[in-house]
């Protein structure tokens, strides 16, 4: 079962590579779209360079912190907003602003607030926050009213309600929020790094690759980003599963 899934996933990746190869063949402009093979060679040379780990860690730490902070803040704010309707109304303009204000508009504000070093943390944070907030709030609002009534009659305290009612029912919402957010946090975080160009970040490498039109390097770093993003998502969903298992609920994990 498990090995069959592995196989399927490998096949999926192979198909994706084939699509890429085909596209590269059709476009046939190596300066624009390089073939998987070239990228693979480049990838190996990148990964074996001495400061690769430091670069990857630099970006990973920043983007992961932006994501985790936003996750925590988003859940906390959504819990507040779910409990007090007035708080929800108060938050609305802020969330709406965070959601829709283009990065171009507050990049300077961001740079002043947090400097180019930490730009990626803030930008990842700002893209993840509204996603988590909205999903969790929506989840809280669609929590089974009948179970909440039951808890009320039995005077179950908030910790119990959270553990036994909210967390299980929020599961699909948290899963989709975090599955979407991890990817977008990388997307936005690296974009922040490309703007701020902090020394020794993946964003700096991307920036250089772009400026110097070295498409192979651009693609190779992009592959690194995708792999890191997948790795982080897997790690995170593993932790989430563990946490859920801790609540003592028998598992019914919906994998994505």
């Amino acid at each position: 079962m498990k090995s069959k899934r592995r196989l399927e996933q490998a096949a999926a990746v192979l198909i994706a590579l084939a699509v890429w190869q085909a596209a590269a063949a059709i476009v046939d402009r190596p300066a624009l779209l390089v073939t998987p093979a070239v990228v693979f060679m480049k990838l190996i040379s990148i990964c074996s360079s001495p400061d690769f780990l430091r670069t990857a860690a630099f970006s990973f730490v920043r983007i992961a912190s932006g994501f985790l902070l936003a996750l925590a803040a988003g859940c906390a704010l959504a819990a507040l907003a779910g409990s007090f309707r007035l708080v929800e109304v108060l938050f609305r303009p802020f969330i709406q602003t965070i959601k829709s204000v283009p990065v171009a508009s507050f990049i300077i504000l961001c740079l002043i607030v947090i400097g180019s070093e930490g730009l990626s943390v803030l930008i990842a944070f700002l893209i993840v926050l509204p996603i988590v907030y909205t999903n969790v709030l929506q989840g809280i609002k669609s929590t089974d009213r009948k179970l909440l009534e039951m808890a009320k009659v039995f005077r179950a305290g908030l910790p119990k309600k959270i553990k036994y009612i909210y967390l299980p029912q929020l599961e699909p919402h948290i899963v989709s929020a975090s599955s979407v957010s991890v990817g977008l946090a990388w997307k936005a975080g690296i974009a922040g790094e490309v703007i701020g160009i902090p020394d020794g970040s993946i964003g700096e490498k991307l920036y250089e690759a772009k400026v110097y039109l070295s498409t192979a390097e651009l693609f190779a770093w992009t592959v690194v980003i995708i792999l890191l993003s997948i790795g982080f998502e897997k790690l995170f969903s593993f932790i989430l599963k563990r946490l859920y298992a801790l609540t003592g609920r028998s598992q019914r994990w919906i994998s994505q």
Partner: protein
Amino acid sequence: MDITVTGLEKRYGENRVLTGFTAIFPAGETTCIMGPSGCGKTTLLNIMMGLDFADGGEVRGVPRLMSAVFQEDRLLEGFNAESNIRFVCGKKTYREEIAEHLERIGLAGEHDKPVRNFSGGMRRRVAVVRAVLAKSEILFLDEPFKGLDEKTKLLTMQYVRDNIAGRTVIIVTHSLDEAQAFGGRLINMPVRNETGSRGAGS
């Protein structure tokens, strides 16, 4: 203190469900409520439990500590029977005590299985044990023995009778046998009458 319900009114839009319902539920005793489907029994319990509001009239003397068997179980699907019961009682309730209670109504050895996989009658019994084990001064039981076979039903009724000493109990039931088995007062809620008002007999 007895619970008194006076002139209770409840409307859902055009639908007048309770029209001046009045009754007394003596403290520490069991009262059964019978009445045709849709006459407002569950609505009455909801109002008494504070889950719904009345459009008129008054409910007095409902103790703070309540427990209930809801008409539709309302179990925590993903959790096992023990967790479901632990949800309503303090940390001090021992695992053994819960298992023992479950055993008494024929659920020996089932305490650590998720209730999602329980049969209908098993779920019902978990709901009953939950209501009984919760620290409460009053129990609202809405058709508590629904969906049980005769033998299990007798077992469960006996279990409830053994564990409600001194507590006020309100049972909604459709079976005169059940009502009689619990003794106590019997309130017949009349068929709904869209316009007239109605009282309650004992």
